[in-house]
């Protein structure tokens, strides 16, 4: 009977089929989601009306967003496609946000309150170039207002209501570049000024309602014109010449053009270098920024100009802000040490100067956007949005930072995981224990109520809050389960952040590149980061540290640098500018006596430099040098080369520098194959078992080698995107190459298939995703590799007599016979990133993490991709859990690890093990960040948070009571029987 019970119990367990699924009230328990926008490049304030004050921004990450000006929260956000960079944004009719993108060819209008796209117009521009958008204020054709988009020599007028092109005027002049459009108030004529081939100035009068060309005039310029102009009034503008040292004042009164050259050195006494014009709007004032200062210049009468103000330090200048008919304001921001001075100048005069302290990890000011508000005493107050070097966004008002956003996190380029400090031994007071015990009991009572569905909405909210507030998960110490860790990320700006896995908060952040900026290192940029020292037996007391490697210049031959950073505090432990370049950093599976991991830095001349520098590191490396190999994929030449290391390098005599010797090369025929993707196993992946038992009690041995490289090539015609190649001229070849010997282990061709290819390699299998042109669907293929040379180890006698080769190490030196099995499946979605779950000991079954086109992360069980599947599995196969073969991989909505969240512009997924074997951390990043913990085979090794201890307690109590009652009853019965 018990056996039957057990069976039933197991059956019930197996019924719960989804390995990963959460209830709605569990959101936020183990996961967190952070939304960012990226580095702001345009900002438009919307503060006129009462109600919600907001600012609309567009960013380098092609996002447009509306932010609440009080808190900096995102009200709405859209991420445009990756080729759809925003050129300009504007407001129209007070309720639409207009965005001009794709080099002036797409104009979109978004509803300001909720971000719904209202209309989209393709402007059909033949040669996309610098375009600009001009929203006309007062063309009243009905209630509509027109927006002009100028591109080269053509103007398009677009209705703001529905996005229809009202009129279109191609001025059809070769080399014409329109620079400025304006419309005098109460007039139906639009004036358009442009330059023709930087030597002619052209003026066009255009009817605002019909687009009819009324009048045009051209005039030769006295200087070569650059593209920078500044419109200073309704009939004049200022341009800069190509030498950037002369100004040209252009007037276009009544259809005629006059121009007048003014050397800048006449106006600004100590002028030298290259000047820059800051766009202004009117008032006869313009701003010239020179390397040493900022000059405010006013035009007076005919061709006379006057310097009306000067800011002595060159700072960052905002665009002009019109306060009234006569007044316009500029913000000038200087940065010194860890403070910035914020200065507002009205018509060149200093109106306001504030000093604001700023954390020094933000770097310099990059951009500033000025906005004003009217105080109760009718005077002007100013606020400014400031974009810093680390891409963060600050709002400044009244000498204070009102809010700040860490938008640098929108451009993560690399990430590693580090441990937190060990909890210090120390007494915990009894009061504290009692308090927590009470809280604990209370919490469990609430949970019990929840389980029994007796709780009120208030209780539910309390449960939710309790989960989220749980101090346990946000502690700054290492935990037994390995749930609390630091994710250390590197962003495009070169800033390094440490994020806590508990709630995603920033533990520390450092902008490292300014530390290096010097003559010897002009433009430092960080390339990658690695674990330098991880807590280990010998190094438990040492703080773990991170290695950051970067380049001093843009080219591949520029010198490298490295930083070693303490991962607990972010303190820089070591800085070094290297005397060689950096092409690649190869982490080695070796460590020196102080547990610093050995790294080889390969330079552009293929020399290998060993780090850390130390005699024991050198000793360790030289001992293992004969077993160290390096391979290089040369994408441009379609070649993969393998190298061994030798003593003595070509550039110097340093003992830490090693030369390389070419061992093998795989040359792909460049006329028929292009390398599109490579993938290899994670260096630290743990495999639990080598043997795989088949349904017929047979044993297959997995071919587990760390040296497998997956390479995918496509035909040159299919190298473009989908839609560019026909099925007949497209093919995809997948290779498995041993990186030590260069041996091609396996090769398979998919006819009619093309990229993009996303691949992941783990244990003895590879899964890759590509596009099948014949079926016009995406496909995923799995290849599993088995070692045939170990296949005859099944003989028991051999095992007993020790004549087996199971203990022989897997080595690339021998040529094992391998067998592969593969299977292909259709997959519905496009894929942006692919990864595989990793657990501490590799026992838990694997899930493939797929970043889909909808910016979600899907966890797909590996057993859906099993080459052993057949259409009609036999009874044994069914018992083993092999599902029948289907042509399409199932997409179960509950297995989206991101549930209802989206990771905008998803770029990468990372999985790293917890100490608990069943659980793995998943961190995915794009513009947004999403972190969660998943258990691919459920948490079989621990009780979940859902587990009701109170219910258990009650059961135990009930059991004891029942025992007592039955005991009493049996006694009574005994007594009665004895009396009988």
């Amino acid at each position, binding site marked *: 009977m018990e056996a039957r*019970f057990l069976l039933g*119990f197991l059956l*019930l367990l197996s019924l719960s089929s989804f390995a990963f*699924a*959460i*209830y*709605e*009230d569990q*959101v936020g328990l183990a996961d967190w989601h952070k939304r960012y926008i990226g580095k702001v490049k345009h900002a438009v304030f919307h503060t006129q009306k009462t109600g919600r004050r907001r600012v609309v921004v567009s960013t380098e990450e092609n996002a447009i967003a509306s932010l609440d000006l009080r808190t900096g929260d995102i009200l709405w956000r*859209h991420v445009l*496609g*990756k*080729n*759809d960079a925003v050129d300009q944004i504007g407001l129209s009719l007070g309720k639409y946000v207009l965005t001009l993108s794709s080099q002036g060819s797409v104009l*979109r209008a978004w509803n300001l309150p*909720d971000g*719904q*796209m*209202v209309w*989209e117009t*393709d402007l*059909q521009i033949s040669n996309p170039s610098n375009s600009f958008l001009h929203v006309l204020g007062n063309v009243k054709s009905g209630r509509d207002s027109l927006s002009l988009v100028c591109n080269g020599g053509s103007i398009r007028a677009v209705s703001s209501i529905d996005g229809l092109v009202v009129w279109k005027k191609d001025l059809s002049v070769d080399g014409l570049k329109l620079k400025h459009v304006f419309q005098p108030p109460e007039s139906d004529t639009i004036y358009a000024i442009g330059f023709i081939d930087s030597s002619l100035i052209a003026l066009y009068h255009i009817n605002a309602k019909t687009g009819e060309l009324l009048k045009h005039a051209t005039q030769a310029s006295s200087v070569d014109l650059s593209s920078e102009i500044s419109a200073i009034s309704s009939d004049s503008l200022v341009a800069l010449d190509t030498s950037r040292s002369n100004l040209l004042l252009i007037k276009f009164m009544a259809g005629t053009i006059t121009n007048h050259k003014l050397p800048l050195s006449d106006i600004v006494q100590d002028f030298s270098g290259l000047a820059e014009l800051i766009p202004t709007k009117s008032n006869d004032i313009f701003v010239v920024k020179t390397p040493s200062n900022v000059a405010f210049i006013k035009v007076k009468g005919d061709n006379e100009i006057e310097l009306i103000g000067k800011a002595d330090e060159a700072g960052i200048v905002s665009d002009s802000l019109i306060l009234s008919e006569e007044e316009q304001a500029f913000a000038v921001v200087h940065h010194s040490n860890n403070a910035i001075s914020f200065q507002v100048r009205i018509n060149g005069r200093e109106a306001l100067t504030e000093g604001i302290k700023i954390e020094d990890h933000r770097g310099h000011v990059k951009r500033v956007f000025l906005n004003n508000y009217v105080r109760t005493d009718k005077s002007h107050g100013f606020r400014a949005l400031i974009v810093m070097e680390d891409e963060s966004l600050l709002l400044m008002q009244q000498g204070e930072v009102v809010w700040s956003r860490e938008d640098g996190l929108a451009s993560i380029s690399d990430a590693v995981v580090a441990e937190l400090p060990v909890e210090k031994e120390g007494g915990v007071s009894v009061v504290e224990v009692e308090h927590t015990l009470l809280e604990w009991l209370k919490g469990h009572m609430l949970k019990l109520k929840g*389980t*029994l*569905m*007796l709780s009120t909405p208030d209780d539910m909210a309390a449960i939710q809050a309790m989960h989220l507030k749980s101090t346990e998960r946000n502690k700054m110490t290492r935990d037994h389960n390995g749930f609390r860790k630091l994710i250390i990320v590197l962003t495009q700006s070169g800033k390094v952040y440490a994020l806590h896995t508990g709630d995603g908060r920033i533990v520390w952040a450092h902008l490292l590149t300014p530390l290096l900026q010097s003559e010897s290192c002009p433009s430092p940029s960080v390339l990658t980061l690695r674990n330098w020292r991880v807590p280990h037996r010998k190094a438990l007391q040492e703080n773990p540290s991170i290695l950051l490697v970067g380049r001093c210049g843009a080219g591949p031959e520029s010198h490298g640098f490295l930083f070693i950073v303490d991962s607990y505090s972010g303190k820089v432990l070591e800085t070094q500018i290297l005397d060689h370049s950096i092409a690649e950093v190869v982490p080695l599976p070796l460590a020196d006596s102080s547990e610093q991991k050995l790294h080889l830095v390969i330079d552009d001349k293929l020399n290998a430099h060993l780090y850390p520098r130390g005699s024991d590191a050198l000793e360790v490396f030289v001992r293992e040098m004969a077993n160290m190999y390096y391979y290089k994929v040369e994408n441009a030449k379609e070649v993969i080369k393998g190298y061994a290391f030798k003593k003595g390098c070509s550039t110097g005599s340093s003992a830490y520098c090693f030369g390389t010797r070419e061992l093998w090369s795989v040359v792909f025929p460049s006329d028929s194959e292009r390398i599109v993707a490579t993938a290899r196993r994670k260096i630290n992946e743990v495999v639990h078992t080598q043997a795989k038992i088949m349904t017929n009690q047979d044993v297959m041995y997995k071919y587990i080698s760390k040296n497998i490289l997956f390479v995918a090539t496509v035909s040159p015609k299919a190298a473009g*995107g*989908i*839609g*560019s190649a*026909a099925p007949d001229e497209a093919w995809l070849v997948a290779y498995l190459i041993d990186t030590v010997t260069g041996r091609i282990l396996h090769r398979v061709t998919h006819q009619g298939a093309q990229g*993009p290819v996303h691949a992941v390699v783990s244990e003895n299998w590879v899964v890759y995703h590509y*596009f099948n*042109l014949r*079926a*016009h669907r*995406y496909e995923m293929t799995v290849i599993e590799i088995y070692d045939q040379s170990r296949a005859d180890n099944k003989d028991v006698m051999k095992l007993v007599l020790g004549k087996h080769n199971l203990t022989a190490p897997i080595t690339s030196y021998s040529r094992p016979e391998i067998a592969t099995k593969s299977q292909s499946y259709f997959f*519905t*979605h*496009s894929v942006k990133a692919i990864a595989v779950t990793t657990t501490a000991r590799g026992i838990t079954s694997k899930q493939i993490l797929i970043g889909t*086109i*909808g*910016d*979600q992360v899907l966890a797909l069980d590996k057993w859906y991709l099993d080459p052993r599947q057949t259409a009609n599995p036999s009874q044994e196969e069914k018992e083993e859990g092999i599902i029948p073969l289907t042509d*399409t991989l199932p*997409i179960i*909505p*509950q297995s*989206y690890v991101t*549930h*209802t969240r989206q990771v905008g512009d998803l770029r990468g997924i990372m999985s790293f093990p917890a100490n608990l074997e069943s659980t793995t951390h998943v961190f995915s990043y794009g513009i947004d960040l999403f972190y969660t913990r998943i258990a691919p085979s459920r948490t079989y090794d621990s009780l979940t948070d859902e587990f009701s201890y109170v*219910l258990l307690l009650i*059961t135990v109590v*009930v*059991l004891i009571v*029942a025992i007592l009652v*039955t005991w009493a009853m*049996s*006694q009574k019965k*005994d007594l009665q029987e004895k009396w009988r």
Partner: protein
Amino acid sequence: MERSSALIGSIFLLISISCLINPISAAASGSGEGYSIAGRVKLDNFVTKGFGLGHSPKLSETKVILNGGQRTTFVRPDGYFSFHDVPAGTHLIEVSSIGYLFSPVRVDISARNPGKIQAALTENRRALNELVLEPMKDEQYYEIREPFSMLSLVKSPIGLMIGFMVLVMFVFPKMMDGVDPEEMRQAQEQMREHGIPSISNLVAGRS
């Protein structure tokens, strides 16, 4: 489509009359050899139920993606979207909308027959007469918590434990009843002699 405004309806009518073989709106645009693909995303037939707290699927969050990310566009309030300047060939359109599963759509723009566009859902190979994209199904991202029932309590490990206990308490004595008391005593004495301890012995032993 019937629900759309009269103007749009008449445009569709015009197109379908003018070229019966070409039901999907497509137009050769002025510049170059590009064509336009226009279509509509329809969500209104789907009732959204049990969606996340404070999240309701919005049309404003719906993206339409051409060829796996080459181009991205958004849908208008009425559900319409369009791609311009698309070269002839076979293309793939995907709709990304949280809460719904859309099948990708294969769109063929004929090079020989300019402006002729055919579309089909790739998941079930169903040809589309008009490019109206409807979700295949709505996606439920959360496990539904089953309402409290005795069955679920019984199914839980603790429930099984209690169940087993109850069984032992009430069914075993019933089974014992069937046994002749004399035989039972004999068996018990035998057991005592052999020294096999049992719970009943322990309980009985105390009295």
